[in-house]
């Protein structure tokens, strides 16, 4: 009380807690009866993902069922978190292919550079987020696993068509 208290004269409408209480009760009742709820019942209903959502990776395959990857080494080079492990190999026709292609999804920051830099459009980040595992080792996706993924892939942003129309 030692400091001066500034007392404002306000109309009763603002200081009455009876009216405030009643209007508050009316508001909550309105929301109670409002059938429009915001809950999405997750395992049953899912929110639509953005076409540019960047989730766990997918390796696309060609008509023969082999990975499109030519082991050029661009993605491990561009990867800022250094999570792609690539050992290139070469077959008898001189075609390069990945002997080992592993992505550590724990290290990955889902920047999408690997998809952007890939000349063969082989590696993609996917529109997918349900990727829990029981062990840390489970998060290192090898080539078979990357090829076995079926979820849709991220559509990169096109500067010529910024709104995706």
């Amino acid at each position, binding site marked *: 009380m030692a400091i001066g208290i500034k007392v404002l004269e306000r109309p009763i409408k603002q*200081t009455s807690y009876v009216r405030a209480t009643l209007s508050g009760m009316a508001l909550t009742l309105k929301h109670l009866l409002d059938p429009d709820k915001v*809950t999405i019942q997750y395992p049953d209903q899912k929110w639509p993902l953005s076409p540019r959502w960047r989730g766990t990776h997918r390796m696309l395959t060609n008509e023969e069922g082999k990975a499109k990857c030519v082991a050029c080494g661009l993605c491990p080079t561009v990867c800022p978190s250094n999570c792609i492990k690539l050992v290139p190999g070469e077959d008898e026709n001189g075609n390069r292919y990945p002997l080992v292609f592993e992505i550590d999804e724990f290290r990955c920051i889902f920047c999408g550079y690997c998809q952007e830099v890939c000349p063969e459009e082989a590696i993609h980040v996917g529109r997918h987020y349900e990727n829990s595992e029981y062990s840390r080792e489970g998060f290192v996706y090898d080539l078979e696993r990357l090829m076995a993924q079926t979820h849709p892939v991220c559509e990169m942003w096109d500067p010529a068509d910024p709104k995706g129309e």
Partner: protein
Amino acid sequence: MTVLALLQAATTGDGLVHASQPESGGVWFLATVIKMLLTFTIYMIGVMLVIWAERRICGFIQDRLGPNRVGPAGLLQSVADGVKNIMKEETYPGQAYLPLFVLAPVMAFIPALLTWSVIPYGAPWQSKWGLIDTALAPMPIGFLFILSIASLGVYGIVLAGWSSNNKYSLLGGLRSSAQMISYEISMGMSTIPVLILAGNVSLSRIVEQQGGWGIHWNVVNVTIAFVVFMIAAFAETNRVPFDLPEAESELVAGYHAEYSAMKFSMFFIAEYANIMTASALMATLFFGGWDIPFTMWDNIAPHTFAKTLATFAFFWVKILFFVFVFIWVRWTLPRFRYDQLMALGWKFMLPVALGYVVVVAGATLILESAGIHPASWQFALIMLAINVVLVAVMFGIVDRGRLISPAYSRLDKRDLRKLRRLDAARMRPITSEGGAD
């Protein structure tokens, strides 16, 4: 003095005659055992469902859905929570005083349960073995029993707060005791008008007196007493806006901060049990108990089993309505500041309750001397008229925003002058003998 007089009224009044309808010993024993089982079962299932209802209604109010996955519409959510709580580890703080620490949840829970033994659930049943009262223990002093048991409920909370050896718990317990003491007085006072009209403290008699078309319900006869009782009931059950003993934002979890697993669950159950008890009391004292309004069918002689069931169902409709109001208020209003709580209890509720006792006693006296008996419809109409005026006046005064003083409200002119004088006194120059304050 008052209590003594009431006691005498209870033991000599006609309530006693009603309450002790003779059955043979065996039938009485059997009926009581069945009633005990029924009461306990219904009560515990009720608590479970009220917890579920609270969470669902809270969800709806916040535009969510609430728990709806366990069982149909989530009805079994409380069962799942109970199982989880039983499986959990019980933790004991190293410095806690264990005997009371263990005893406190029980002491919080039992009084809420005990109250139900005297509440009549329905019209008495005239079976071929004799008249069976629906209250578990139709005591002639039922109401006094409730008052005394209700004040025991605070011990669980205070002891929990003290024995935890935790400063937040202790603060919660202290607040709780202060709050209970403040509001119990107005709660007791607000029920005096009911007792004046009933002329008895037996709950069966109080319900009987309200029976009929619904115009004799005490909410019509003594409206302000009902308003005061309801506010006090909110305070007694530690519900928002009076949940200072818990006050998550200030006291972690208040008195049960140190409790885990089933012991916490006991406090949780006790809270909802208290809500049901308070709702049942409001229904019994002010909304005619098991009386079905707009019909005389349930009040007249052949007390068949169908009537008992119908009145029982109606009693539960009333209880559930009040439970809903409790939940609705909880998810609407913010918490009181501590000084507002005390100001509301002592400066507003107590004087109003006391003044209303005088008003009702005076009105009853005058009307009775004018030949209008409390059981007549003229009496109810006149009381209704008086109450409409009084409620209007009371809310008019409360609406002026001076009684609880929100932080931004206008101060009384007198208070303002006093504050300024105080200010001026402090600002005088410090003399040689005056130190800094």
